[in-house]
């Protein structure tokens, strides 16, 4: 089951650039939450603060609290541990090119020391079924490289890889922006399926996508969270003038 995320006083910097300012936000468990906003508004940085990927950049810095299932991930846990509990799917599909489809999915478990063939076989099949890729690849699991799949299949492979370590939260950074409409629809169906079991946070540039998959939506602008509400409210009756300007296409 997914868990909720409570964010308070979150600030993030790249060098001297204060890219996230005083973010307060409660992300509900087992829902999909969309983050929208113009390029450079901080939504991806925010996402990367939720699994401590932000700090992998040597000039990056973070302050504030992020509570996942009541545990402060910056105070009470190591980044490696937190990234096992909070999975991430990136903008461009990034399967490991020298690994087979099977090894890609199993990589998270294998690299953390799991060796049991039987368990790995089970997890690989379950994860690929969850990401709706199983039927397309089941005959080539160990023969083909992850890089030999199409872009849309690669992205679903990356989702399966993230699911295989059984996370509680899934972060998705524009997961469909490099894909064609059919693959995009498949990814969206998938998000819809997955949110019964995981808490999903998705960054998107595509407002229709936010409307289709997410119950709640947050609007970021220039490093600040301008508005957070139910997706319906954000798109029909936003409180803030800037949100309205953005969703009606007046800027951004």
């Amino acid at each position, binding site marked *: 089951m997914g868990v909720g995320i409570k964010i308070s006083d979150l600030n993030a910097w790249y060098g001297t650039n204060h890219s996230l300012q005083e973010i307060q936000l409660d992300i509900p468990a087992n829902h999909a939450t969309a983050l929208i906003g113009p390029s450079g508004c901080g939504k991806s940085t925010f996402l990367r603060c939720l*699994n401590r990927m932000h700090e992998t950049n040597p000039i990056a810095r973070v302050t504030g609290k992020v509570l996942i299932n009541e545990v402060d991930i910056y105070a009470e846990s190591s980044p490696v541990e937190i990234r*096992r*509990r909070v999975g991430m799917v990136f903008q*461009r599909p990034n399967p*490991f090119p020298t690994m087979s489809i099977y090894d890609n999915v199993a990589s998270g478990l294998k690299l953390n020391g799991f060796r049991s063939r039987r368990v790995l076989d089970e997890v690989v099949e379950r994860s690929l079924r969850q990401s709706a890729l199983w039927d397309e690849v089941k005959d080539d699991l160990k023969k083909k490289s992850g890089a030999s799949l199409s872009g849309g299949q690669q992205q679903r492979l990356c989702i399966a890889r993230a699911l295989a370590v059984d996370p509680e939260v899934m972060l998705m950074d524009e997961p469909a922006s490099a894909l064609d409409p059919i693959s995009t629809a498949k990814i969206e169906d998938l998000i819809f399926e997955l949110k019964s079991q995981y808490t999903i946070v998705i960054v998107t540039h595509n407002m229709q996508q936010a409307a289709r998959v997410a119950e709640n939506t947050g609007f970021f602008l220039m490093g600040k969270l301008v508005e957070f509400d139910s997706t319906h409210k954000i798109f029909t009756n936003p409180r803030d003038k800037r949100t309205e300007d953005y969703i009606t296409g007046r800027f951004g």
Partner: protein
Amino acid sequence: MASQSLRPPLRASNVNVFSRRIKSNIVSGLALLATIIVIAPLIAILFYLLKQGITSLNWNFFTKIPVPAGESGGGMENAIVGSGVVLALASLIGIPLGIGAGIYLAEYAGSTRMGNLVRFTADVLNGVPSIVMGIAIYALIVLPQKHFSALAGGVVLGIMMVPTVTRTTEEMLRMVPHAIREAALGLGVPAWRSVLTITVRTASAGIVTGCMLAFARVAGETAPLLFTAFGNAFQSTSLNEPIAALPLQIFVYAVSPYDEWHRLAWAGALVLIVLIMASVALVRYVTSRGMLKGAS
């Protein structure tokens, strides 16, 4: 009225197909010529070695040790085995050190002062004449031990492999996309493990090529072995004793006054080149066997 276009108008008379074709053929011809000039020496060397060496190649060459001058028969079994021993030791030293240093440069040092120092040192080491390397190891290992040895030979060749392996490993690791590293970190893989398993594995084809380049280069080295492995007319596999090596044996036989030895030197040169090519091909084959369909 439309604004004036900067593009020249496209008209059939503008396109002089004939002169374009001539220019294209001239450039293609020059490229072909350059290719031939580059390949010709290699082909010529191979053919000349075959012509001179093949007649002296027989079963004895691979199974017998040298006989005194004037006697016929005898081979280079000891030198072939010796080269194998020295090169195996060199690879054991040079490849792990080189790959380790390459990982350090690409993944940890970046462009820090220490990183640049290591990079500069590797480049200088690459440029040190091989005979100087031989003298250095002579002073460091042979003199204190008071005898020549296979160990000293392996060490000098191993050190000569390090800079090539280091720099190619670094270059290949740098070519691994950032997205791949992020994928590993995002799965909760510790950084060191991600480097060793994901990044190095992704770059492995290039790293193997670098190791093979370094191997092939030192396999033919003669000068540094003169001061270290020294050569041995008898069979030896001990690391503590002087040992024969193909390049050394070729050198000794080639400068000797005997026709029989000259013929053996040609045969030795042929065997050396074929062995180098065969081992490079074998390693490439073995490492490419695990490759998957569509892997890049």
